[in-house]
């Protein structure tokens, strides 16, 4: 299965979830948010939200700015 994560093409095993993506990114436990194809995926739903073929996943965190 192919998905785009933060603009990069990823190959993921079938059945992968949003949580799997975050593990691979080594995301910290807090301060992170995920959008799947333009919709926010609430944190509580990460383990049960599948990544679909062709999904665009954005994983954002806070940085210095403004």
């Amino acid at each position, binding site marked *: 299965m192919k998905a785009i994560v933060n603009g990069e093409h990823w190959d993921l095993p079938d059945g992968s979830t949003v949580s799997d993506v975050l593990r691979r990114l080594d995301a910290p436990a807090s*301060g992170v948010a995920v959008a799947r194809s333009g919709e926010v995926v609430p944190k509580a739903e990460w383990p049960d939200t599948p990544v679909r073929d062709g999904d665009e996943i954005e994983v954002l965190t806070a940085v210095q700015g403004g």
Partner: protein
Amino acid sequence: MNTDTNEVHLTMPTDEPAPDELVIAGTVFGSRLVMGTGGATNLAILERALRTSGTELTTVAMRRMDATGGTGVLDLLRRLGITLLPNTAGCRTAAEAVLTARLAREALDTDWVKLEVVADDRTLLPDPIELLDAAEQLVDDGFTVLPYTNDDPVLALRLEEAGCAAVMPLGSPIGTGLGIRNPHNIELIVARAGVPVILDAGIGTASDACVAMELGCSAVLLATAVTKATDPALMAAAMRDGVRAGRAARLAGRVPQRFWAQASSPPR
């Protein structure tokens, strides 16, 4: 002479003004200087500047996570007890800004947002059409919206009518340090605003921050002027004092400006 020592103590004159707090959407802040975190070369320098500034509200940006990212700035702001104000910097459309605000709410557990929707990279000026659209959507979605806006009194009113918790007109374009290019427009915005007016962008040095407060702004938001100064902590102190001086001057009520001289000593 009053012999009641308690009463004497209570009425003792002081040079310190009464507490003068900034209230945004019911939240009270002791400092009228809102800081941004952008531009600091490292977190130690940023920490010194933030501590010295006395700020209680500080912006962060939302960006794609990468291996080198980390959450250092978040840890720092939480350790200093500073309220987070995520922004939507980099967004060009209402749709982008609304999604970024929702992601910030999810990541940072706050429904406050500094709404930025800019038109192009050379000016970074707000796109008023997209800005108002995004503000309306985010207010409907329960956000406390603080829009970065043009120094346009009409747009400022429209944003307030849309339910924004403050309006944040620019003094001049982001990062230019050109100060307040149209002070009369800022005064017009202040004169009609029912929400706090926060001068955002263009501050170059302490006198700019002071002027913003003298014009009647409720607070000043700045980043580059401090973080890119040769000595950021010292400039943070100057900004802190500039904001305080300008606020005091505004409350004190300045003398009218005159064309001709007027003697301050009695005539002979």
